[in-house]
């Protein structure tokens, strides 16, 4: 009698376990499919940085993106930053170009944890890698409107975990980052819209909960699948 019960429980457990795991991964897969669908994109963005006293700074930039691991960011304003460019290439190769020096410099990979250009996004956050490649997922909660996933990094990371909330359309709504002391240190919120065939994050808000500094990054205009040339992702283009 007892062993029968136990067996039943075990079988149910074995059946449900992978199912649960699969579900979490499936959700992440769908998220990745939706959010990184275009082959390439060119976007103009506007970043508003707000410090704890409510002081604001505005920056504009153009982003070119091709595939998952080629990206160029070129600042257009303020005047002092105009022309500063960051180029990311496969295998964590990163360059910065400063027009005042007329020189490019390679940036080491260990800067990934660092804030990018005064924003609350780190180089790591800006990586175009898919969620699936970066994280292991576990489904924490599921209801009619949303899924809540717990993500743990596959690589070394400054975060112990990320709680990702995904809406029923498989679009990220919110990502909460926890440090190794299990304190929530950062929160990102996403506002996805559809343009043509693709969903993209029109507005990303990042809030550093320790410094109370926040960044709002808004996509002003966007073009997908225009067939960006590889030449764009080169030092030569950076300097133009």
């Amino acid at each position: 009698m007892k062993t029968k019960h136990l067996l039943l429980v075990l079988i149910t457990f074995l059946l449900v376990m992978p199912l649960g795991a699969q579900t979490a991964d499936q959700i992440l897969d769908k998220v990745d499919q939706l959010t990184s669908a275009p082959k390439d994109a060119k976007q103009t963005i506007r970043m508003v940085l707000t410090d704890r006293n409510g002081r604001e700074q505005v920056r504009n930039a153009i982003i070119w993106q091709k595939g998952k691991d080629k990206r160029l960011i070129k600042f257009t304003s303020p005047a002092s930053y105009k022309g500063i460019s960051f180029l990311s290439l496969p295998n964590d190769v990163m360059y910065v170009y400063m027009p005042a020096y007329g020189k490019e410099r390679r940036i080491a990979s260990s800067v990934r944890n660092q804030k990018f250009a005064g924003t609350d996004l780190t180089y790591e956050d800006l990586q175009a890698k898919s969620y699936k490649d970066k994280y292991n997922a576990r489904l924490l909660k599921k209801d009619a409107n949303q899924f809540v996933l717990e993500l743990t990094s596959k690589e070394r990371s400054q975060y112990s975990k990320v709680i990702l909330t995904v809406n029923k359309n498989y679009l990220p709504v919110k990502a909460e980052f926890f440090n190794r002391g299990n304190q929530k240190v950062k929160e990102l919120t996403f506002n996805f819209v559809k343009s043509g065939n693709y969903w993209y994050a029109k507005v990303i808000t990042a809030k550093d909960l320790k410094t109370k500094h926040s960044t709002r990054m808004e996509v002003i205009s966007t073009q997908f699948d225009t067939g960006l040339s590889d030449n764009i992702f080169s030092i030569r283009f950076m300097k133009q």
Partner: protein
Amino acid sequence: MEEKINKTMLKLAQWVVKWRLPIVLIVLALTVFFGYYAAQIKVDANIVNSLPDSDPAAKLYKEVGKKYQGNTTGIIILQTDNVFRTDVLEDIRDITDSLMAMNGITHVTSLTNIIDIRTSEWGMEIGRLVDEYDLPDTPEELAQLRDRVFSKDMYRGIIVSEDSTTTSIIATYSPDVPEDSISQAIKNVVSQIPLRHVEKIYYAGMPFMMLDTANIIFNDLKVLLPITSLIIIIILALGFRSVRGVVLPLLNVGIAIIWTMGLMVLTGHKLTMISDTIPGILLALGSAYTIHVLNRLNEINLSDRQKALVQAMAFITIPVFLAYITTAFGFTSFIFGSYLTMIRDYGIFTAIGITFSFLLAVIFTPAVISLFSAYRSKDAKRPQETRFVNRVLVPLSIGVTRHPKRVIAIWLGLTVIFFFGIFLIRREVDMVDYFREGSPSRVAQEILDSKLGGSSPIYMVFDGDVQDPQFLKKMFDTEQYMKEHSPYVSYTFSVADLIAQMNEAMGEGYRIPDERAKIEQLWMMIEGEDVMEQLVSPDLDEAIIQARFAKVDSKAYADFVKLMDDYIKRNSSDKIKMSITGLPHTYTNMDRSLIVSQYTSLVIAIILMLIIVSLTLWSLRCGLMAIVPLIITIIISYGFMGYVGITLNVATVLVASITLGVGIDYSVHIVSHYRAYRQSGLDVTEALKETIRTSGNAIFINLVAVAAGFFIFIFSKLVPLNQFAILMSLSMVVAGLAAVTLLPAIIFTTEKQNPKNTEQ
């Protein structure tokens, strides 16, 4: 007029007896009310909070500390045989991470997360000195790290000591959480981390020093106050041999302490390292007033005890008032001319406390006595002439009246000897020296000074256009100037250093670029870095150099202050405005002000005493005579200070005025008793002998109680309080001795010279 006063006093005494029940109830209600607040009293051990805003350096120090979070950094010092080992790095990383995860900590800087700008043949790296996810673990990697640390001024002897045995972790506190609770939490957290190879941990920096001081202050109150009470109980029990004689004075003092502490909390004050002596002082001084009242009651032989009480009160209220008011004025003298607000507040609240004690003694005590019929039985024997009177005071009185000139000569001799000691007095304002040698706080500061580039923060503020090349160059040059010209500054850090390092990484050398555009673009690379908040204002109109000073003595402080003040005079301009503050400046100002405080409060106290005593005795001559023994007492005490090496500090600066305020009572006692005996028909010699016998007894009982109250602080762990205890006790004894020997001798000689007296 005397008649009128006596009548008023009689009426007051009758009124008290009539309204005894409401009086007792009101006092109890007030005690409950103040007690509620008194229980919430907090300690503020931070001497910086006590610096006055009228001093620009002090004001700037407080402002800069707040704005750039510099004053609230706790430093955790780790010691082991060799810092450059993987297991030690793991320990450092674990502590760093645990601190970062704490509430109330905004930044942590350690070997495992410090910013590092590197130049390599292929580019630049703005990152960390070590990769915390991939700590160096081969001998080569560890050696590389060691070379890197020792090749940069910013790290060598600062973050790791030159002998590789010591490293520091610096935690910046959030302004939203009370400092003491963060410091305590850090200690708790760190103690729970299982360490692999770190052997010793020390805690340094202002917040930890303050936590330590606060704990000592609380401990002093918890341990020393009961001991003081016990001593006073024993003295009272011996003096009165009755329960009432012990309970009533203690009750009064207890209530006065509760009211004073309650009032402190209500007015937003905290206990400081000197005001924690207030309860002890109230115990010693305040009980005396009740003792006077009880003594007088005992002396009146009337079978109707209520009448006896009224009579006693009518007689004693004025003398007790005079004793009270002189003491109160002694403390009031601190209100004027004190540099540190904690000294001013100490004066105010001690004066208030003894005012409470006085009021309770003349209103609450009689009310309680009549309410509970706690009179002494009418056949109570008058206290017998004690052995002390017979064996000591009687021979003393004969000696003094027989050889008055010799007595005066001895005192003058002592005065001359001790006078020269005054010039040997050293001053001490540095917090570190308030801890006993070998105490953890002191050891920690000493390690910082000797191994990690110094413990005293310096902030140099530059106002202007921060991204202007001229501005940054000036900062850069100033840092070099400081390091080159002061042997005690080895660590300086500013945004100019970061810009120079990045300029080097861009291939243009370790210097500030000439073009503004370059600075602006480099800025983007470090913008948002935690460290920037500690170096530049958000509006980019102000930047600071953070430096540290390795303390040797106050002379080194003063030299540095002069060096930098001169430099600023030469270099500050409208475009680049410089100002400097830090512990060298605030301590130097404090040091200077300590002497001013001492003179001002002493002069004010002497003038006040002279006025009160002259008015009381209605004779300027008597007033002057009464004050002479005290001035001599003060000279002897200060000479003693100089000879034995007790320093003039925040606590010992109080001694002179307190001595005056308390000691003047002895003189008044002697002079007024002498005059009373003369009026009753005794000749000069007999009157003086009687005076020494009766007043001498009262004075000695009082001074034993008071000296005991002060002396107990010799057991405090704070050095200034130990020294205060020694000096105060000594002063009380000398003041008492001077009152019963020198003063009668002076009276004797002056009276004998008066032809009117020689005829008798």
